[in-house]
């Protein structure tokens, strides 16, 4: 039971850290709004106090219309990416699986871009782009899985190669689509670069249901992912319908990645780092890893975005640059360690 105690402590710690990151994200930005002003503004919105007279209207707009939705969106997208990474890492039984690295995010992006180019971003309603992103992500995940799998296992090298190859093809197709897109190219750029800046509360309304469904699905597959960790044959012996599980897990991982990509573009490494670090702390049980990764991913992306919008304020950095700067070296470290392990195994 010691691991259970430890898990609860870690989860509590993560929850507190998330609250702290959230508060920090709302309190700090390109423009300085004093914490006292922010607190009173929030109190006023909650109906606890009168509108603080000495706080500028611009501060109110900055806190409620710009920062709050952005921090929430970062939390949701970070959680989705980390959960997606957890599911893919479990499915592939490979710690280097990340929706961006294995090409699933690119697939989602391509799906979204195709819809934007062919029928326009808004024509299918709010869920048109996420739906298209989901189809692209799903197709890519299946393809990469088929390519990467040799016999019963997915090796690091084949997974990375398959991911890189598929991502390269997708990237070429994307360039091709953009070459022929004419005026729509502006919408594509806006979408690819828009990231967490773009839509405020509207993005949250779009992405929240998608991610909620994805997280529910991830919770449902997490027990069976544990059994798959023992090997597919063992899992089958233990009563897991392995093929059905794989289809479900791919769908869940793709849905989560698609939700994230459809509102924030491709953001790498959150899905790689978060589950991996937490696995070191609380072990590989997916029923524990998943909620921890959800919290951890939210924290990570809130902080990465905070850095992106403050480091060179009032200019901004794309948040993907920050996550790549953190995650790139981490990825290389993992790759090296995996290589050593493989070497040790002979």
């Amino acid at each position, binding site marked *: 039971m010691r691991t259970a105690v430890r898990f609860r402590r870690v989860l509590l710690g993560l929850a507190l850290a998330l609250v702290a990151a959230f508060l920090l994200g709302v309190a700090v930005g390109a*423009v300085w709004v004093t914490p006292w002003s922010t607190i009173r503004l929030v109190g006023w919105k909650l109906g606890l106090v009168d509108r603080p007279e000495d706080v500028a209207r611009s501060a109110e707009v900055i806190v409620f219309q710009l920062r709050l939705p952005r921090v929430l969106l970062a939390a949701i997208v970070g959680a989705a990416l980390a959960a997606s990474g957890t599911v893919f890492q479990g499915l592939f039984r490979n710690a280097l699986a990340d929706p961006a690295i294995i090409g699933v995010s*690119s697939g989602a992006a391509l799906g979204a871009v195709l819809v934007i180019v062919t029928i326009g971003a808004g024509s299918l309603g709010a869920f048109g782009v996420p739906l298209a992103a989901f189809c692209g992500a799903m197709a890519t995940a299946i393809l990469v899985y088929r390519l990467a799998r040799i016999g019963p296992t997915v090796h690091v090298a084949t997974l990375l190669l398959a991911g890189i190859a598929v991502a390269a093809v997708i*990237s070429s197709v994307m360039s091709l689509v953009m070459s022929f897109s004419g005026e729509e190219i502006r919408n594509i750029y806006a979408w*690819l670069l828009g990231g967490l800046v773009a839509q*405020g509360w509207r993005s949250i309304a779009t992405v929240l249901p998608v991610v909620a469904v994805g997280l529910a699905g991830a919770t449902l597959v997490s027990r069976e992912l544990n059994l798959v960790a023992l090997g597919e044959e063992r899992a089958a012996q233990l009563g897991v319908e392995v093929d059905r599980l794989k289809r479900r897990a791919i769908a869940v991982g793709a849905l989560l990645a698609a939700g994230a990509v459809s509102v924030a573009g491709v*953001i790498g490494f959150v899905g790689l780092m978060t589950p991996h670090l937490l696995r070191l702390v609380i072990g590989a049980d997916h029923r524990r890893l998943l909620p921890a990764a959800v919290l951890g991913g939210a924290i990570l992306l809130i902080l990465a975005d905070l850095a992106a919008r403050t480091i060179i304020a*009032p*200019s901004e950095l*794309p948040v993907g*640059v920050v996550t790549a700067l953190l995650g790139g070296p981490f990825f290389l470290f993992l790759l090296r360690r995996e290589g050593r392990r493989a070497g040790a195994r002979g």
Partner: protein
Amino acid sequence: MRPTRTRAGLLPAVLLLLAAACADAGPSVSPSGGGPSSPAGSAAAFPVTVTDDDGVTVTIQAEPERIVTFAPSATEIVFALGLGERLVGVSGPFDDFPPEARRVAEVGGAGDFGVDPNIEQVVSLQPDLFLTIKGGDQWKERLRDLGVPVVTLDATDLDDLLEDIRTVGRITGATEGAESLANQMQAEAQGIADALAGRPAVTCFYETFYPPLYTVGPGTFIYDLLERAGCDPVTAPADQQYPEWSVEDLVRQSPEVYLVSSESGSSPRAVAKRAGFQAVSAVAAGRVVPVNADLVERPGPRVLAGLRLLAEALHPDVLV
């Protein structure tokens, strides 16, 4: 281009180069063959040697008869100097002014981002002058190696542009035409400056793209026009030329006039609907003004019309 966010830093460059780019790289039939025509200016002494804005020293041996312009601004300058007949190649569909420019062969659309010239096609046109803007050092080097005289123009403010126009005049033998065009533009600019004299500058913001929000910083041609039009851009502290800008900061600074480039793809109505933008003075006061990017963002002969447009948007009560 890969859809990774890490490439985002390229956006300003890509957007700018879009103006010089086109998807349609295929050779098109050109009726303006570029045979010898009478010089538009006085007979200047050739060879002419200039140091261009890349710092490269170029010698033009004889009066150019076959000119390729690889930037809409350069195309406009060449036409304004009466040398349109000698144009044998332009960059692409963005070279749309004057309308005759659309009939000239397009040489753009090559390279990783589709913003480089097709070297083979340029060489096949046998140009004796290749006029372009900043960027593309590698293909410029290749063209020089192949014997094409490449001259780079990079106007960072209006005075610089007038100097560039005179330079184009010198290297094309259209010295007098260039001189009179530059003087005329100078006089117009002075007229606008006089009309605005004593008027306090209004704060403004110039949107080049959204989302994310991109703008212009000091050291750009557009920024110079804004200042000349009586604006005090809230992006003065920017240390990049085309920075991504924080909406928070925009709301805090709350500029009086919000200018939307036609290249941004947004409309004033769309601007007003964005999260938080209602708190910007310009939006609340209905002073969101669409700007024809061709007149403001192309350092060419039409920028005075652009300057007038900006001045009218910023100071509607001053007749300029």
